[in-house]
């Protein structure tokens, strides 16, 4: 039986991973296989891990404010490596106008503080495997 595999990753320098861990746990309890990378990963590390783990989705968590640089770098690298069909979602302290920009850059959804865990679980369940693999 096919299980949903999700990479939860923290790009950049901030070390606050409580949120990432809580989301990882919720996805685990929803029956998914969650691979957690740990903190302070480069976009290259994250994409390489996504390839080796053959994940259906990547969840990026960031609280340092560097999301406008790091998230698009991850989506771009994924497309470059032929992994454009992987669902990318983000979470953290991200202003709404930035979220709009990130969506244009290939981040499927952005979840801010206080998002109910069920919302995240449902979104991933409904949207994995639906993205076309567009080369870029």
């Amino acid at each position, binding site marked *: 039986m096919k299980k949903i595999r999700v990479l939860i990753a923290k790009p950049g320098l901030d070390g606050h991973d409580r949120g990432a861990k809580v989301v990882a746990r919720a996805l*685990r309890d929803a*029956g998914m296989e969650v691979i957690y*990378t740990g903190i302070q990963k480069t976009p290259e590390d994250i994409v390489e891990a996504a390839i080796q783990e053959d994940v259906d989705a990547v969840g990026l968590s960031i609280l340092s404010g560097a999301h406008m640089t790091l998230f698009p770098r991850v989506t771009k690298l994924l497309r470059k490596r032929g992994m454009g069909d992987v669902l990318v979602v983000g979470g953290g302290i991200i202003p709404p106008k930035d979220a709009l920009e990130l969506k244009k850059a290939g981040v499927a959804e952005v979840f801010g503080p206080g998002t109910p865990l069920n919302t995240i679980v449902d979104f991933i369940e409904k949207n994995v495997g639906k993205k076309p693999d567009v080369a870029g």
Partner: protein
Amino acid sequence: MSLVEGLRNGDKRAVAKLISLIEDGDAAATAAIREIYSMTGKAHVVGVSGPPGTGKSTLIFRLAQEFRKRGKKVGIIAVDPTSPISGGALLGDRVRMGDLASDEGVFIRSMGTRGRLGGVSAATSDAINVLDAYGSDIIFVETAGAGQTDVEVSDLVHTTVVVVMPGVGDEVQALKAGLFEVAHIFVVNKADLGDADRVASDLSIMLELGEQGDWTPPVLTAVALRGEAEKEVADFLEEHLTHLRESGRMEEKKRRRAEKELMIAISESVLERSLALSSGRSFMSFVDEVLEKRMSPREAAIRLLEESHSGD
């Protein structure tokens, strides 16, 4: 390009997709494994086992760095437990493995146990085959945190490393049967916590009491986090491989592995069959028979299997 061709060309995506097919029990995996099976048997396969939290992932991280320095291509299969309740898993071994992910010569794959006991999953054996055919020189198989009876990994690998730490029991623990009997190398990790020397001497005494084979497992103390142990452990891993080859034990090991692989394959197909039976119509009527004490579970099972065979 097919996944097998991709694997031959060194494409990591193809390797990863093949392992997923194996894990999901996809029929395409059976055909792919048949194609690559003749390319396997070259890698040194090392099992790393021990209780949860003793530092297995950290030790493997350090060993992988060391073998990269020695010019080897490294494969890592890291197994963590699958929840028996949700079927999900939190696979966290990568957290300890730093920036290995971006090293061209390293492939790391995390796996859930997916219902199998013993510290490895049913797919682990074939995942080893994939990483072997991919050209890994050394493959580390990290078990889920293991208990005393979790010896299954030892049949799948050439060399078994057991990692323990201070503070988890007296010398009676070292005398018990199971995991400690299958170790080729002991690492007493987190030696900075104190009392490591006593744990090491308990293990040494345990080994002296046993039958003296042609390989006496070394007992090493280490602080894997600080990177103080990997050279010594790596040297012993190479020494053990040489020993297996020169003593003719390698042939025995290969036979054991083949037996184990066949047994896993049989039990998986039996399991699939029984799951299919349990969703069938007559299963529930047999449950009623057992519930009403008209039949013993064993008797019901035999009848159910007979019925399903006659239906073939």
